[in-house]
């Protein structure tokens, strides 16, 4: 079976459209972030989250009213939502306040929230789960998260620059930064909280996206050796087309599993799975439309450097004892 049989799509023709589209999404994301900010989970923002398990499930509205009436300062800036499997009767309540970081008073806000619920007569309930994070931890995590992302990008750039030419490293990292920005834009737009899980998903996604990019670059490198007389742009197009089947299939299977997580993985993994879904789609898109386009922009569309090089050195004797590696792909190149 074949999804794509001998496709011959001129991907580079669409590069400006692709870049424009990406910019639009990124700018919308930046505007959203600038006006509304990135919603932060308690891990980063600090605050108190309690998950209460009720004997009889109250409506979210009832819980909200209880907080408005009985919680000091009212229910402003609180998040109330039902949590987990409906049969479990659980409600999540998040307040931005947190007890002071002295002594054992960190959890005092959780007690106040429960107090407010008690006063509203919502039936028996008990604390199933709590997450109480002071400002110190949030600050440290934020800086650690940013560093982890930046360093992993630098690590990938260094590795690719070592294994490929520098322009490829640039292409891969630009594509990855692109994916990062697009994913952030989607997260900000759909108001998912920035949490540890989301950071983990973002880092995984950068790995996945470079993965796709590397496969295409590998093919470009291989074709650079065999198609010496062709222009860079042609080689890029051929390479992307040759690997298109694989790109779509692997993204497809990865997407299938990410969707399985999104729909069945439960409440805790929701934002994680969403990030992965967005990341996989944008990662595939950027590998095909952005990464290679950057390489071509960086290097220009001149006949490949390898070809120019070959003219000077290998012209007199057309390399009789070249290793067979170089001959094999030549045939294939003609076939495509």
């Amino acid at each position: 079976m074949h999804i794509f049989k001998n496709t011959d799509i001129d991907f580079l023709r669409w590069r400006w459209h692709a870049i424009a589209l990406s910019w639009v999404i990124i700018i919308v994301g930046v505007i959203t972030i600038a006006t509304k900010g990135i919603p932060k989970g308690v891990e980063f923002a600090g605050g108190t989250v309690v998950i209460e398990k009720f004997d009889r499930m109250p409506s979210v509205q009832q819980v909200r009213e209880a907080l408005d009436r009985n919680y000091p300062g009212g229910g402003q800036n609180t998040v109330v939502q039902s949590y987990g499997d409906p049969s479990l009767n659980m409600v999540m309540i998040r307040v931005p306040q947190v007890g002071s970081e002295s002594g054992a008073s960190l959890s005092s806000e959780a007690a106040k929230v429960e107090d407010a619920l008690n006063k509203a007569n919502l039936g028996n309930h008990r604390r199933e789960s709590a997450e109480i994070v002071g400002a110190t931890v949030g600050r440290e995590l934020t800086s650690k998260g940013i560093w982890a992302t930046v360093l992993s990008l630098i690590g990938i750039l260094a590795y690719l620059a070592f294994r490929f030419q520098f322009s490829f490293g640039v292409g891969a990292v630009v594509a990855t930064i692109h994916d990062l920005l697009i994913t952030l834009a989607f997260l900000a737009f759909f108001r998912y909280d920035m949490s540890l899980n989301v950071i983990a998903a973002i880092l995984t996604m950068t790995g996945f996206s470079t993965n796709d990019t590397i496969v295409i670059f590998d093919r470009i490198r291989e074709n650079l050796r065999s198609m010496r007389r062709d222009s860079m742009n042609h080689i890029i197009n051929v390479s992307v087309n040759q690997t298109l089947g694989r790109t779509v299939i692997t993204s497809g299977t990865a997407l299938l599993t990410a969707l399985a997580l999104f729909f069945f993985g439960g409440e805790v993994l929701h934002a994680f799975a969403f990030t992965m879904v967005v990341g996989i789609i944008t990662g595939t898109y950027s590998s095909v439309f952005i990464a290679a386009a950057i390489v071509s922009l960086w290097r220009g569309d001149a006949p490949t450097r390898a070809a120019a090089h070959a003219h000077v050195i290998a012209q007199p004797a057309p390399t009789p004892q070249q290793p067979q590696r170089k001959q094999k792909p030549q045939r294939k190149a003609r076939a495509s």
Partner: protein
Amino acid sequence: MSNLQWKIVTIIAVFVIFFGVGVYPLIAQRYNVHQPSWLVEKALKLGLDLKGGVHLVLRVQTEDALRIVTDQESERLREELKNKQVTVAKIETPDATHIRVEGVPPAQDPVFRQVANEVTTNFERGSGANGTYTFTMRPNVQVSLRDEAVVQARQTIERRVNELGVTEPSIAQQGNNGDQILVQLPGVTDVERAKEIIRSTGLLELKIVEQSAPTKEALMQNGKVPDGMDIVPGASGGTPADAGTIYYLVKKVAAVSGQDLRNARVSVDENNRPAVSFTLSNEGGRKFGKVSGENIGRQLAIILDGRVQSAPTLESRITTEGRITGSFTQEEVQNLSLILRSGALPATLTYLEERTIGPTLGADSIRSGVIASAVGLLLVVSFMLVYYRLSGVNAVVALIFNLVILLGLMAYVGAVMTLPGIAGFVLTMGIGVDSNVLIFERIKEELEAQRGVRASINAGFGRVFWTLVDTHIAALISCAFLFQFGTGPIRGFAVTLCIGLVSNLFTSIFVSKTLFEMALANRHQVATLSI
């Protein structure tokens, strides 16, 4: 045996081992099948987020440890100066790392310097203009005191947690300054008790009461606490209910403290109320005997964490045995004796982060994780079978191998399965078949270029090898940073992903290729390949 047979044997052996360590215990546990204890010990462990439990991050207030040393040395200085009959206007400790001495008479300046040099070895002496000296704690001493305080706090918490009887607790230092302690207590539900026991300083001090009064002011001289003294609040004895607070004037430095303690246990006082009896070490008993012998008829303040619990009158010389009475409940005396046994914390602790995960939520997470895994596996398997037909079977076998090795390796290295770890497991399926797809697509291309089946397969695996190495190393790089960044659940995710990547390299290249070789082994002319 031929080369191929060796490969098959290797693969089967690897499968059996990892299945035995990683998967069998899970199945056996689920269906209550008996399994040997060494296997149970090795079984894959669940993280806090799946099992339920408490996750605490505390900060050690290392300032406290510095303050104790500063106080001690300033007291020693005071004593020594008194012995040498040097009278100074004032000795004070303005903060945790400084001692200030005012009004050293010019005539006695050389003696003062000599005494100071002998006593305050941990301090740097500043210039003494107008008879005023400032001593600053040496930076290296500060660093080592802080480090020591954190290590001691960790050890004390470990002892307390062990006394609590928590199975498989995890206690580690962390944080940018290394002054945070992470405590994970799986399966603990009584959060408040655990928190209280961990945090209580548990500092027991026995001091002779100089004076007591119902208000602080009555004990002060000229509106100040007398030099070298402390005013400590406490209940006025008798029953707790009627007790107004009463204040005791005691020496700053304790005659006997918790470090001299050998044991503490639950007991009752003469009125049959819960109390804690303690035994001092020989050294502590000697000191206590001296102090109590010299002060018969005076009150002895039993101070716990800066509060006088009781102040009985000394009727005779006491050496090693003592008892703390007060207004305790049975649970309080149990906690207190536990805390005293495990030793005092060198500094106060504050909570920075606190998570509890109830067992219901953990079970719910496991259930959704398993469902998501099953659905993900089903989707990927059916796609591979439909798209690659018989070769799809090859990929599916490789995938299942991959997952078995992943679970087995995680169990073997003692990694912990967390909820994000399950996500990593699911993603490994989706991303793991990537290697197979890459190889198969390449084989297809080679076949289309009219090469033979065997040649195509060899070319497919050969060509793709370095691509796979590149993609896996790039992914491992981001994994490594993820591991470095994360704590708890995220670490579990990074570990799962890393192990999945490594085992994927093995299964997609070695296992999958061997499967092709097996399929083609008994056929001489192969014209078609189901791919």
